[in-house]
């Protein structure tokens, strides 16, 4: 094979990659925060919420988990405007990630809630707490702690999946890579380097989530 690798373009274009990576980080920060919040709400509805709402949350979870993220993204960005909902590329990407992670994390968190011993609910009730107060103060944190590793993996999966938001021209890391390779015609090298960026992001994100978990579930000293 006569191909000669050339990475000299990096000298000129690395700021473009960094800018794209920053957008990817922004996407996953917003997506993770709001997505997990949506997941908690969804898990609450499905395991403890009003009965009439449970099938609605169930349908949402099933629908999202059984369709590709790319199609969810296209539906939100191209489909919703015909209903009069206009949004920017980044807003659509954010929304799609929140909705996607909401469904997955909802299912994961539900498993954590359902593993709660019955006695915890009864203790809360016997102390005159409402069902919601018991959920909020007694059940939620240990439930999250139980499923934190699975939840962390899912957040990383959603971050990696966010590469497709470049397809609606959200200017993320992949978008930067596409832009660079269209200028340099060094496609393989460009995607190789951006893959390394994603790898670094994934490792950093895993580490960060471990840190968040440690902080969240740390035993607190006297109040």
């Amino acid at each position: 094979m006569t191909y000669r690798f050339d990475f000299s373009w990096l000298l000129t274009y690395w700021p473009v990659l960094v800018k794209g990576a920053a957008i990817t980080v922004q996407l996953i920060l917003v997506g993770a925060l709001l997505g997990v919040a949506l997941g908690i709400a969804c898990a609450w509805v499905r395991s403890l919420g009003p009965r009439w709402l449970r099938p609605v949350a169930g349908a949402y979870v099933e629908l999202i988990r059984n369709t590709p993220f790319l199609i969810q993204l296209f539906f939100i960005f191209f489909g919703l405007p015909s209903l009069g909902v206009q949004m920017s590329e980044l807003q659509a990407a954010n929304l799609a990630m929140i909705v996607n992670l909401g469904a997955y994390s909802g299912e994961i968190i539900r498993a954590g809630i359902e593993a709660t011993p019955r006695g915890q609910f009864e203790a809360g009730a016997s102390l005159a707490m409402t069902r919601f107060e018991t959920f909020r103060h007694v059940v939620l944190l240990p439930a999250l702690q139980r499923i934190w590793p699975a939840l962390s993996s899912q957040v990383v999966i959603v971050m990696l999946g966010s590469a497709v938001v470049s397809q609606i021209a959200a200017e993320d890391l992949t978008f930067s890579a596409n832009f660079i390779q269209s200028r340099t015609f060094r496609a393989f090298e460009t995607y190789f380097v951006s893959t390394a960026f994603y790898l670094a992001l994934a490792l950093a994100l895993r580490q960060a989530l471990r840190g968040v978990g440690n902080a969240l579930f740390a035993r607190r000293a006297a109040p």
Partner: protein
Amino acid sequence: MMEFSTWDILRNLLLAARWTVLLSLVSFVGGGLLGVALLFLRIGRGALGRRFAKGYIELLQSTPLLMQLFLAFFGLGLFGIDVPAWLAAGAALILWTAAFLAEIWRGCVDAVAKGQWEASSSLGMGYVQQMRHVILPQALRVAVPPTVGFSVQVVKGTALTSIIGFVELSKAGTVVTNATFQPFTVYGLVALIYFALCWPLSKSSQILERKLHVAHRHH
């Protein structure tokens, strides 16, 4: 301008969905075979093989499938051949599927209780015999539900191949949208077709999982 009825749209999408199904099957079977090889490296006794398999799995699980597709597409192109999209798509999906399946199956082998290893060692079995007669048969039972569950990820993963130009359901969705200017309907239908493909798999995975739990409790 030509008028498209919903039926026209649906028919075009369904025709393209055949390719989604075919690519899914190829990726799942190919990935499964490669996954078995990886699994044996991963749980085998060669330190080098173990490290390679571990690195491979982590690498493919920590980078976007889309990047892997690009690298397969342009990487194969480095050999000077004109790479058809289906080849890059198939190759990347097989490599990707293999990593995930190998990791799922490793978890299943790990789940077989430590006592089983000890018991079979105490009976004088060698490593291969232990694997063949004691560990794998038990791991296999546990492995079925998550394996079926992962097939859903494979079907959804094929959607990304549209980005490197393979014409399957998602690509057809984009083409039909451009022709009809009805993104809401078209992508809605595309989603429903994916759902029709994936949901039975998800559901059977759940049912198998539940059966397994019940079986365990009665033992």
